[in-house]
């Protein structure tokens, strides 16, 4: 009698292990982290395109590069270092700080020889979760399915000298023994030139544009407080990263302030507060935003896409795009932002895309994009 319970426990454990090794990998689900083989070397053959893709992405998530590379089709014209670099990033880009957390694959079409799958990958990054959607092709080679990986060409920059003689503003702080009133370098003058409050599916949103009216750079933050009919503050939030914080003289940036789970029906007034401080800054690098256009993406969503062109000689590690959208009255009706996960090397360009809410896409008449940039070694 005393051996019954241990025997049951051991049997249950073995059954569960068997299910984990063989059962899950063969299930039809291709969502998230539970797919793929639990024990390396014990995975089953990729009899279906879903299994092959699930196994491939699980290896990617585990950074098992050799196994992932071996799952590529012979027709893939990519070498292993380039393949790894594409997943791990380079030059201090956002991808180098990111980890694939979950994925979700859906078949687009499939025949007995090839298949196309749409993969929605969710990355954890220092700037929050980032979603990446890719369409991958798979081929039936022999008795297994393999992933066809397109050739990745990392941008290369030829050796060159790029003279940079743009203005730079340095900040000299006075000594502690300065007399009162002698250190009167005023904060930069900045002004909110437009503001619009709307209800969205996730709560109230306050957005608009702010301009640096001064002749010196400014570090800008916009705060908003929602006030009810009794004059009581409901909530206050800041623009956080939905703004280009460092504004050069006469530069305009869009801002967006989100109030999750708050409806505008209870809001009587919105108090705006813009704070600006003097910061050292440089007019370099200059980033052009080329070929901007609004069109539907592969999922049918309206996106503003374009190319970021680094016109300077400095690598921009993490480009950040902030786009403001206007209606036919010139009013800001939405502000979107997005990070580019590849570094922007000197004199090269990288694509970007930011989403427009479906309900607003038809109202968008114009847009304006500003590029915020984070470079390693610079605060």
């Amino acid at each position, binding site marked *: 009698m005393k051996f019954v319970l241990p025997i049951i426990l051991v049997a249950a454990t073995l059954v569960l292990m068997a299910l984990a090794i063989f059962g899950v990998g063969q299930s039809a689900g291709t969502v998230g982290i539970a797919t793929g083989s639990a024990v390396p070397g014990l995975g089953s053959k990729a009899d279906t395109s879903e299994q092959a893709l699930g196994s491939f992405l699980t290896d990617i998530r585990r950074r098992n590069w050799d196994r992932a590379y071996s799952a590529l089709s012979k027709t893939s014209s990519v070498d292993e270092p380039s393949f790894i670099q594409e997943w791990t990033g380079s030059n201090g880009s956002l991808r180098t700080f990111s980890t694939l957390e979950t994925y979700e694959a859906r078949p687009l079409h499939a025949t007995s020889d090839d298949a196309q799958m749409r993969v929605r990958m969710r990355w954890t990054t220092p700037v929050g979760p980032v979603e990446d959607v890719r369409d991958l092709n798979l081929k039936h080679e022999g008795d297994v399915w393999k992933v066809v990986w397109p050739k990745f060409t990392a941008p290369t920059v030829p050796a060159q000298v790029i003279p940079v003689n743009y203005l730079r503003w340095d900040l000299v702080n006075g000594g502690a023994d300065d007399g009162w009133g002698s250190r*009167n370098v005023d904060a930069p003058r900045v002004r909110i030139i437009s503001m619009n409050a709307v209800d969205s599916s996730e709560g109230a949103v306050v957005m608009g544009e702010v301009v640096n009216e001064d002749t010196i750079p400014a570090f800008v933050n916009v705060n908003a407080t929602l006030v009810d009919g009794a004059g009581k503050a409901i909530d206050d939030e800041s623009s956080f990263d939905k703004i280009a914080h460092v504004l050069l*003289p006469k530069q305009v940036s869009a801002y967006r302030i989100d109030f999750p789970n708050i409806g505008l029906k209870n809001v009587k007034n919105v108090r705006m507060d813009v704070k600006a401080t003097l910061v050292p800054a440089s007019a370099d690098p200059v980033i*052009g*935003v080329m070929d*901007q256009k609004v069109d539907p993406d592969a999922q049918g969503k309206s996106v503003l896409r*374009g190319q970021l062109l680094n016109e300077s000689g400095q690598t921009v590690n993490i480009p950040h795009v902030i786009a403001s959208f206007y209606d036919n009255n010139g009013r800001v009706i939405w502000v979107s932002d997005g990070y580019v996960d590849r570094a922007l090397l000197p004199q090269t360009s990288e694509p970007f895309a930011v989403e427009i809410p479906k309900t607003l896409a038809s109202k968008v008449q114009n847009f304006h994009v500003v590029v915020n940039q984070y470079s390693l070694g610079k605060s």
Partner: protein
Amino acid sequence: MQPKNLSDHSVLDKSVLAPAAQPASVLDDSVSADAVLKDSVLKEDFALKGRGFKPRRKYRKIDRGLSRCGRILAATRMQPWLLVWVLGANLGQVCAAQDIHAPTSVPAGEDTHFTTTGSDKATFYLVGPGVSSKSDVELAQGVRIPAQSVRNAGNYLAILCSDTCRSATFYVTPAQPATLTLRVHPSRVPVGQNDAVSGVALPFDQFHNLVIAPYEVNFQLTSGNSSVMSRAVRTLSGIAWFRTSSGKNTGSQQLNASLNALTTRRAVQQVASDPCNLRIKGQRTSKGIMVETEPVRDCSGNPVPDGTIVTFTASSENTKSSVDAPIKRGIARAQMEAPGATTISAASGVVMGNDLRIGAQP
């Protein structure tokens, strides 16, 4: 239980505070006191005696004291006026034992001497803004307050204690102005703005007390060697201020504020205002369209400072390109990619420039 005729609130309060009544047998002198206390609340108390009410202890003492005074006067045959004179003399002696005489005001940071009366030793306390001290003094010599004890302007309290304590208050006034603090706002001002520059001067003495007394402060705004503005302003409650318009030309201006021999200097940077009449020109090159502004100036003709952002936007049929280009040596330039017919516009802040139409690439 309280008697009904003690319903008056004040009497009730007293009865609550009164100690327990003594037995009726000790109230021997109450009859004579009754005549003195007629028409008073106390009389009511005494009048209740016959109905079982017991007078309070303090009333009995008054009663007894008056009775004894009457007996003494009768025994010594002393006239009442003589008794009053003796008591007054004794009281005057007690009062003249110690006292302190302080001036109403004392300049900050100066030695001060207070006269005292009396001949004994006493303890002197000084309490003021940021100061509290205790010292032993000889009443015959007066009280000397060292300069470092009265550096801070404000109200002070001097207390002299021997058998009893006497006090006096005095005010420490700020000394002569030793520094002149000048605040100028803003440190940068666009040209051509009305009432855009303001300055505030505050005189302080050597102990950092704000000098309240009125003084005349001369403000002078100079640009290079020429005087832009000169104004004499009298301080009011320790503050003198002015407001003036900014000039027409960019550059640094000096603001001098002087009070007697004191002079303080600040700089005000006059900067260009918003760009005015922003115009662009451009041409196709092998790489696209090179577009640049004409020298960017404000409406007064001052060049807009380098680093100011000019946003170029190239709009073609389907796409749009934009570049935020900083002004360099007075001109902002950008390279735009637009193979088709393109309209290029420029803006700096909220100021728009002209539109430039460039045909498609041949």
